[in-house]
């Protein structure tokens, strides 16, 4: 009968292994750890984005934007004032839910994040900003627009993106420009919005701004629906019954597609669709799938600056890595990390107070978006933030269909098409 083999460690193996470990430990007291000690420290940045759930398409893009900027900074030698310290991105997923976003941010801070960024959704931003105030961790939001996030005199919260008020001002300004230029004035309008914090705040604000704008456009109905809705047939029937001349949608990816297709099916006659400022109308897959149906939609939105050298460089790297262009949200995520790197460079420390002092002195110009220099006011909002008016216009190249039509210094097309041909006559 065979003797059972001893699967444990025999004496010779034990001696060999312990000798190797001993030699390793001895060696490490001399040359090896000196190399390790000489390596620059790593600075962890926590990024919470909606990587799953109904906003995953944006969240994944934002993560990629964050990571691209981290890779760029590291490739350029890291944070030079801190011995070339490398940046490391810690990833959190809000699942598009504020409570999850907060717990993810907490996890990243416990994991060593010295600065937080993200999170696209205003509701999630509110939750994370409260946490960051408690934990005394600077929170440089790349995208999140609701004014209330920075309204409460928060010390550690800053915003690279534009506020809802800024968006609304831009929206009214461009709407006046279009109606004056085209000498066409809609009389009746319907506002639609998703029922998340941003959707409610943005559409409520739009209704108020429209009333104060002096434009003779009556908002005849406001249609609100849940985030991630799958069917808008009943809502569009309601829109049709209100007989609007123009539609002001505050949407999210997905519902813009459903809304447009349903407007087509139910033959809702409109002069045009004008987005006061929200996604859902310019993403590459939306442009591709809706094709002619998405033509002539205008959206007032913080946008990329295609002629900026920073954008060109970042876009080339993004296209190489992900086979798609750097859209506005990803570009803002990219900008957020560039701003953080600039702040760390000037702070030369990860001490929260030094980071705060450097943040307040920010004057960042080398960014890839339509914006003035990024500077923060006493509330933490970016005083240089701007919006652009974009319109989807016919072009054989899918990637060139979204064009900046205002402001003129950034414009890619000198024509604005309004009123638009009806959806079913294209």
């Amino acid at each position, binding site marked *: 009968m065979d003797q059972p083999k001893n699967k444990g460690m025999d004496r010779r193996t034990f001696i060999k292994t312990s000798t190797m470990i001993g030699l390793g430990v001895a060696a490490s007291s001399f040359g090896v750890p000196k190399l390790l000690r000489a390596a620059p420290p790593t600075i962890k940045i926590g990024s919470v984005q909606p*990587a*799953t*759930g*109904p906003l*995953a*398409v944006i*969240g*994944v893009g934002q993560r990629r934007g964050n990571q691209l900027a981290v890779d760029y900074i590291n490739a350029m030698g890291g944070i030079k004032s801190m011995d070339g310290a490398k940046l490391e991105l810690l990833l959190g997923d809000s699942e598009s839910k504020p409570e999850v976003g907060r717990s993810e941010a907490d996890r990243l801070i416990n994991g060593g994040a010295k600065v937080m960024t993200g999170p696209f959704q205003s509701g999630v931003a509110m939750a994370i900003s409260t946490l960051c105030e408690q934990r005394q961790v600077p929170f440089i939001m790349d995208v999140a627009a609701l004014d209330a996030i920075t309204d409460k005199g928060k010390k550690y919260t800053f915003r690279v993106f534009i506020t809802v008020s800024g968006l609304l001002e831009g929206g009214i300004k461009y709407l006046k420009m279009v109606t004056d230029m085209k000498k066409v004035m809609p009389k009746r309008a319907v506002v639609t919005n998703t*029922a998340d914090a941003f959707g409610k705040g943005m559409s409520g604000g739009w209704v108020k701004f429209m009333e104060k704008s002096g434009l003779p456009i009556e908002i005849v109905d406001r*249609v*609100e*629906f*849940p985030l*991630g*809705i*799958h*069917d808008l*047939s*009943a*809502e569009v029937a*309601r829109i049709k019954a209100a007989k609007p001349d123009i539609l002001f949608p505050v949407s999210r*990816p*997905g519902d813009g*597609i*459903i809304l447009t*297709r349903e407007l*087509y*099916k*139910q*033959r809702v006659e409109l002069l045009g669709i004008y987005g006061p400022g929200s996604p859902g109308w310019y*993403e590459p*897959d*939306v442009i591709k*799938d*809706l*094709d002619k149906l998405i033509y002539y939609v205008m959206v007032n939105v913080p946008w990329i600056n295609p002629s900026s050298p920073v954008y060109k460089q970042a876009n080339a790297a993004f296209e190489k890595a992900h086979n798609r262009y750097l859209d506005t949200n990803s570009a803002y995520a990219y900008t957020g990390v560039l701003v953080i790197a600039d702040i760390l460079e000037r702070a030369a420390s990860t001490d929260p107070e030094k980071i705060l002092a450097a943040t307040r002195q920010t004057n960042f110009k080398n960014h890839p978006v339509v914006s003035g220099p990024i500077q923060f006011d006493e509330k933490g909002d970016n005083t240089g933030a701007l919006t652009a008016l974009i319109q989807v216009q016919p072009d054989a190249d899918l990637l060139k269909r979204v064009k900046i039509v205002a402001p003129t210094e950034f414009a890619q097309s000198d024509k604005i098409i309004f009123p638009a041909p009806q959806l079913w006559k294209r």
Partner: protein
Amino acid sequence: MIALGLSLIFGVMGVINFAHGQMMVMAMYVSYWIFVLLGLDPYLSLVVVAAIIFVQGYLIQASVVNRILDYPEAMQVLPLVSMGLILENLALLLWGPDYRSPQTALGLETLWIGPIMIDVSRLIAFALAILITFLIFILLKKTNIGKCIRAASDNRTGAIVVGINVDRIYNTSFALGAATTAAAGVLLLPLMPLSPHLGHDFTLTAFIVVILGGMGNLIGALVGGLILGVAESVSTLFLPATLKHAVSFSILIIIMLFRPQGLFGGKK
């Protein structure tokens, strides 16, 4: 039809398939893939997609569900919720998070009777839903495998005693439920943009429909689905659309209070 598949699985095995919506999403992606790669309209690929998801369902039942049938109900939930998460993340990995809305031949077609608009895609989905329910009904009532499924559903021990391979029957039942859901997913493809997270809502809605119609009752699932769909649509005329789910759950609570066995009765 999604509820029909869920009801079939529950009716036979007493297991609630919490991966149901995600299986539907998988079917939608397979159909989308076939459309993009081969140009085959979703209606034409329906049978192929249903067959693929049938095999997937068979494998899930054989590898996971058969092992947990005798566990307490609370413990049956976790493996199927996990399966749903795996399928959702697999879709995210394979196709990315983007919303996809293929321009199918009939996707934007409508019929007009005076001022009334009829969405052709919805009309086809409705007609095929009734046809498929009828076919499954015939399969269960008239065929040998249908009789075996009903026997295994009625009395598992009795079915084993008379020589029915109950494990194989269970595999077939789960696969049939999965294929029905796959067909529903294909019919939905022209109607809504596709993304990996879509499944949760449909699992929940199907669950409400199944309770409404009666757990395990196939006709109940069809009628329950109709009632819920009409109630949600009509409610948007009087209430904010954000209260759609509140309407569904209110109906669910009322049914559970006054007719806990569902409208058409079913397993308790």
